C-alpha cells in the first residue's frame, strides 16, 4: 500500500521532468534563430554587440547540456528568465499576475463546487420531476453560452447601461480610500468575471454530481439503508451524498490545477490583469520566454492538483486505499 503511494509520487516526478525538458528543448528544436525567439522581432534592429550581449546573458553561446543544467538550476531557484520585450524578470511578472487570477478562478471554483453539488443533488433526488428537468435545461443552456459573449453582454448591460459595476481591470486606477474601501473596490471588479466563469463552470460540476448520484440512488445498499427504517433525509445525507462526492472532488481538484492558468478569454474581455491576460499579451507580442514560463506554471499546478486528488480520493472512498 505504502509502496504504491511512493510509486505514484515517482510517476509524477517523471512527468514533471519530462514536461520541463520539453519546455527547454522545444523552442531550441524550432526552426529559426533562438535569439529571435528570445528577443522577438526586434532582433533585426539590434546591433551585433547587443546581439552578443543577449546571447551571452541567455547562455546561448555555451553547449546545450550546460544550458540544460543551468535551466534546471534557475528553475529550481524560482528564476524563469528575463523578458526582453517587457524588460522585466519573468518570475516577477508571473508573481504580479497570479494572485489576481487566483482571486477570480478560485472564487468561481468555490461557487461552482457549492452550486454544482447542491443543484446536482436536488436534480438527482427529484429525477424526472419538473425541478430536475428545469435545472437540467438551465444548466445545459448555461454551459453552452460562450464566455466571451456572456462577458460582453454583462459589460454592456450591467456596466454600461445600468452603471452598476466596473467593466474592466482589477481595481480603480489611483484609488484612494480606507482599507475596507479598497477591498470593496477590488471585490466590485471581480463580480462580473466571477459570474462569467461560474456560469461556464457550474454545469460541469452539476452534471457530474447528478449522474453519480443517480447511479448511487439505484445501488443495493440504498435499499438496505431504507430497509433499516432510516428516514429519507438520513438516507440522502448519510448514504447517498457521501457516496456521490468522490468523483465530484476529483473533477474539482483537476479544475483547481487549471485555475492557475487563468482564463485567457474572460481576463481579456474584462481586461483583467491575470495570468490569462499575460498569456494573451505574450502571444500577440511573441514573447516566447514568458509563454514558456506560464505553461510551466500551469503544468506544475495541474500535476500538484492531480496529486492532491489522488491523496483525497482514499479519504472519500476507502476502497481506493486497497489498490
Amino acid at each position: 500500500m505504502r509502496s504504491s503511494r511512493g510509486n505514484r509520487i515517482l510517476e509524477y516526478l517523471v512527468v514533471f521532468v519530462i514536461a520541463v525538458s520539453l519546455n527547454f528543448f522545444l523552442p531550441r528544436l524550432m526552426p529559426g534563430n533562438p535569439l529571435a525567439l528570445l528577443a522577438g522581432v526586434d532582433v533585426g534592429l539590434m546591433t551585433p554587440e547587443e546581439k552578443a550581449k543577449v546571447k551571452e546573458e541567455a547562455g546561448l553561446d555555451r553547449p546545450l547540456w550546460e544550458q540544460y543544467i543551468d535551466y534546471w538550476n534557475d528553475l529550481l531557484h524560482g528564476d524563469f528568465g528575463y523578458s526582453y520585450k517587457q524588460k522585466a524578470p519573468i518570475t516577477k511578472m508571473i508573481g504580479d499576475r497570479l494572485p489576481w487570477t487566483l482571486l477570480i478562478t478560485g472564487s468561481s471554483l468555490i461557487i461552482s463546487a457549492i452550486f454544482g453539488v447542491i443543484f446536482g443533488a436536488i436534480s438527482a433526488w427529484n429525477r424526472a420531476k419538473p425541478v430536475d428537468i428545469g435545472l437540467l435545461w438551465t444548466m445545459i443552456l448555461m454551459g453552452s453560452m460562450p464566455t466571451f459573449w456572456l462577458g460582453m453582454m454583462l459589460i454592456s448591460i450591467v456596466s454600461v447601461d445600468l452603471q452598476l459595476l466596473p467593466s474592466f481591470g482589477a481595481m480603480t486606477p489611483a484609488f484612494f480610500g480606507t482599507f475596507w474601501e479598497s477591498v470593496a473596490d477590488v471585490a466590485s471588479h471581480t463580480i462580473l468575471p466571477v459570474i462569467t466563469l461560474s456560469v461556464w463552470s457550474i454545469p460541469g460540476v452539476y452534471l457530474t454530481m447528478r449522474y453519480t448520484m443517480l447511479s448511487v440512488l439505484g445501488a443495493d445498499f440504498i435499499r438496505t439503508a431504507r430497509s433499516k427504517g432510516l428516514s429519507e433525509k438520513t438516507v440522502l445525507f448519510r448514504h447517498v451524498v457521501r457516496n456521490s462526492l468522490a468523483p465530484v472532488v476529483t473533477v474539482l481538484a483537476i479544475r483547481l490545477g487549471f485555475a492557475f492558468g487563468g482564463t485567457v478569454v474572460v481576463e481579456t474581455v474584462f481586461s483583467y490583469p491575470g495570468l490569462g491576460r499575460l498569456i494573451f499579451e505574450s502571444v500577440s507580442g511573441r514573447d516566447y520566454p514568458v509563454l514558456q514560463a506560464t505553461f510551466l506554471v500551469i503544468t506544475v499546478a495541474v500535476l500538484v492538483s492531480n496529486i492532491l486528488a489522488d491523496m483525497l480520493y482514499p479519504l472519500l472512498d476507502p476502497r481506493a486505499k486497497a489498490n
Partner: protein
Amino acid sequence: MNPLLSVNNLTTSFNLDDGDLYAVNGIDITLHQGEILAIVGESGSGKSVSLLSVMGLIPMPPGRIEEGEVLFEGKDLLKMSYREMCRIRGNEIAMIFQDPMTSLNPVMRIGDQIGEALMLHLNMTKTRARKRAVELLELVGIPDADRRTRDYPHQFSGGMRQRVMIAMALSCEPKIIIADEPTTALDVTIQTQIINLVKRLQSELGMSVVWISHDLGIVASIADRVAVMYAGKIVEKGTVDDIFYHPRHPYTLGLLKSIPRLDSDESGQLEEIPGHAHVCFDQPSHCSFANRCEFKTERCFQEIPILYETDIGRTRSACFHWSRLSENENV
C-alpha cells in the same frame, strides 16, 4: 392463534413502457410466530417483489400496490404513514438481501452500519451501539469482532459480509426476518454455514423467518412450510415434507423433477419444464401455467384456479387437476 403476519390478496404492478406488468397477482401469505416459511419460484415469479411490497420498498413509480392488505400484529402496513412504516422497518421486520457484495455501504464502517439502526430504533448512544455491534458480530461468528467493526465492507469476504448483513438485520431483535435469497451469491460450503447460522439464531431468538429462494435443496433443509410461486401467484402451499413428497401442483412436480440427482436414471439426462415462465402483462384470465402443463385440459384455459383443498392435510393447490397428481403418485 393469530398469525404474526398475514398478507391478503396483495397485487403489485409496475407501469412499464409496454404496459402494466403484474409482478404479484393477489397472493395470500400467513406467517406464524417462530416458524420459517419458504417462498419458492423461478426468477421473475414475483417472490422478491411480494416481500419488498410488504416492506414498502417497491420503487414508486413505476411500482404500484394495486390492492390487498398486509396485516402485521393486526395493523395494515400498507395503510401506515411513512413515519409509522419507518418504525416497523429494521425494528419489527428486517431484511437480508441477496448480494452481500453490493448491499453494504462501501464508504461506511461496518460498526457504524450496524449501529445505525440501534441508535435510531433503540435510542442507544454511539458508544452503546458500538458495543452492541461487537456483540452482534460475535453472535454471527465473525472472529476478532472488536477490531472488525472499524473495517469497511471491501475488507470482508462474501460469506463474512453476509454474516454482517445478518448481524445488521438481527440488531434490533425484529419479530420477522425476510431473507431474500441470502445464499444465492455464495459458494456452496459458505451457503451451508449461513443456513445453519440462520437456523440456530432463529431457534435461539424465536424469530419468524420468510426465506425466499429458488433452490429447493436449501428450502428442504431450512423451512417449516413452503409456498410455491409462479407468475405472480401462489400455486401451492403446505408443509415442507408434504410439498416435497406429495406435490399436488404440476409446477411443483416439475420443479422437483428438475433437481439433479446422483441416483437418477441411467441416461443422465436432466429433466426440465418445457416452455418459459409466463410474464403477465394485464391480469390473467386463465391458469398461467396451462400452456406448459402436462395435465392441461380445456378448463385450464377458461378459468383461473383458486387454491383448493387437497387429499394431503394442509396442502392447498391452485390446480383443477390435483387429484390426477395424487392418482399418478399411487401408481
